[in-house]
């Protein structure tokens, strides 16, 4: 059984690239979200094994979304995707309940290492 993933990023480009990386490694992408609000709603609906979460998104940012997801499901496994220069926000995200983070631009091996550690 492959793990299910919800990919959250406001850029189609990033979602596509991330989905490709994860699918190639055997994950099943069950949903995508382009805002924090949608990420929370989709999480509740799909209950994926894993969430990848962008920090900067319109409507509701990724950190607030993590907070809401974790308060809904304390066992939620979220990996943050941050751009370079957002280290400070990563700390916020971990405090909000994210399990790990990867820095854009993505290195496929680094992404897989992080998600496999989290779902493993």
């Amino acid at each position: 059984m492959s793990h299910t993933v919800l990919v959250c990023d406001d850029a189609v480009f990033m979602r596509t690239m991330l989905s490709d990386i994860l699918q190639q490694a055997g994950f099943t992408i069950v949903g995508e979200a382009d805002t924090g609000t949608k990420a929370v709603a989709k999480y509740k609906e799909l209950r994926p094994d894993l969430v990848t979460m962008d920090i900067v998104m319109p409507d509701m940012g990724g950190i607030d979304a993590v907070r809401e997801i974790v308060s809904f499901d304390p066992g939620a496994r979220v990996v943050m995707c941050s751009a370079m220069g957002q280290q400070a926000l990563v700390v916020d995200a971990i405090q909000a309940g994210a399990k790990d983070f990867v820095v854009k631009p993505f290195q496929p091996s680094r992404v897989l290492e992080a998600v496999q550690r989290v779902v493993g």
Partner: protein
Amino acid sequence: MAEMSLDLSKYVDLFLSEGREHIGELTEALNEMETTPSSDDAVAAAFRAVHSIKGMAAAMGYTVVTERANAMESALDSLRRGESQVTPSLLGHLIDEADELAREIEAAVIQPASETPGESAPDRGASVPPATTESARRTNTHVRVRASRLDALMNLVGEIEIARGRMEREVARIDDDQLSSSFENASRLLHDLRDQVIGARMVPVGQVFERFPRLVRETARSLEKEVDFTLDGADIELDRTILDRIGDPVMHLLRNSLDHGIEAVAERERDGKAVRGRLTLSAQREAGYVLIRVADDGRGINREKVLRRALELDLVDRDATNLDDVALLRVLAHPGFSTASSVTDVSGRGVGLDVVDAAVRILGGTIEIKSVAGRGTAITLRLPLSVAIVRSLVARVGEELFAIPFTHVLETLSLEPPASALRGAAWTTTEISGSQVGIVVLGNLFGVPTRISAQMPGVSVLARGRRAALIVDAFVGQQDVVVKHYDPPREGSPMFSGATVLGDGSPALIVDVNSLI
């Protein structure tokens, strides 16, 4: 963890379209900041837009774009945090920067940051840079041209080719050194022009094949098989029309290999084979053709079972005891053979091979099959480089000329027509070096008055895995013929695939060898 890399060229289009979108959002947000300097929403929207562009550009390795977006992001971030104020001069600066960023996004995809030698640039369609882009960056500019315009060009080249042929005879007749040398020069240029026009229609097979690695992986996973897939020769070029039409047949062959060829892990272990099966899709140029090959190291085709079924369906001689590769293909490609559901599992192959065969034939290509029990199967599609020009053997039958495409020609020979040919039979057989070979007497077939003599020129052809000899009256020569549209008669079998005009101006029909044997 398995070594993994991303083929960034796949994301170029997405980068460009989404980058343009974000530029639009950025421009809108900056305009709003101009009219409502206190708008936090506008600042946040502008920040998100450059942030997204920065992330995408960094992923693509477009450093120029990344750096400018990063600088803009910093400025917008400090506005967002209230650390600085929107001033007309800052806004003016941001608007200029946005314009620069827009140009750099367009330029980046034209001249990729990490250009690998030998890697052909993907077709980016209408990504023409703005007029202000440095001329140095224009060297790789792409222009989108309608396919019908390329067809028209090809057609014109064909017409000029015909005119050249006529002129050649005149030049030979007049026999003037000056004229001959000018004519030769013009001929050479025309030849170059023709190659350029054909080249303009060519695209690398990778454009269609690059989706296969993922499909193979997913199919293998769903079948719970371990497969290493290799794609070779992605940069080999093929006529766009041909490439578009072979995508599905190739996928079909890959599926067959995964489904029926490559064994489950347990079976491979038991047979002492490497646990991971190997599946290769390769493209290769070979003297005027492109060979597309799908090869696996699976169990091979079970010839006994195919033969048994072929005997039941009356597809082979009653006394046949084995099937060689040629006979095997003929049986498997027989319409309906493989679609009989009871056969698919038994034969271990052949599901829809008739469909693949038909698709390849329409393009003037042929299929070859090689299969060794326990070792694997390789299926090769031999395709012409272009559908517009066909290298042909020109033969005379009676007073008429016919072009026989080289794709099918094995050799020319001289043979003794069987007695039935004298009686007007079009299809017959004769013995050539110990084996029975089908004979098609073209004169009788086409109803052209022809004189049957004791020894006649013939051409040994191969089509649909079957060999046969076509008997003609005489060989005229070989020539690249330009295929012209041809309306086949409504009645009867379509024996011709097109028409052409030869160098001397005489018309000739192009023989559809596949339909004859």
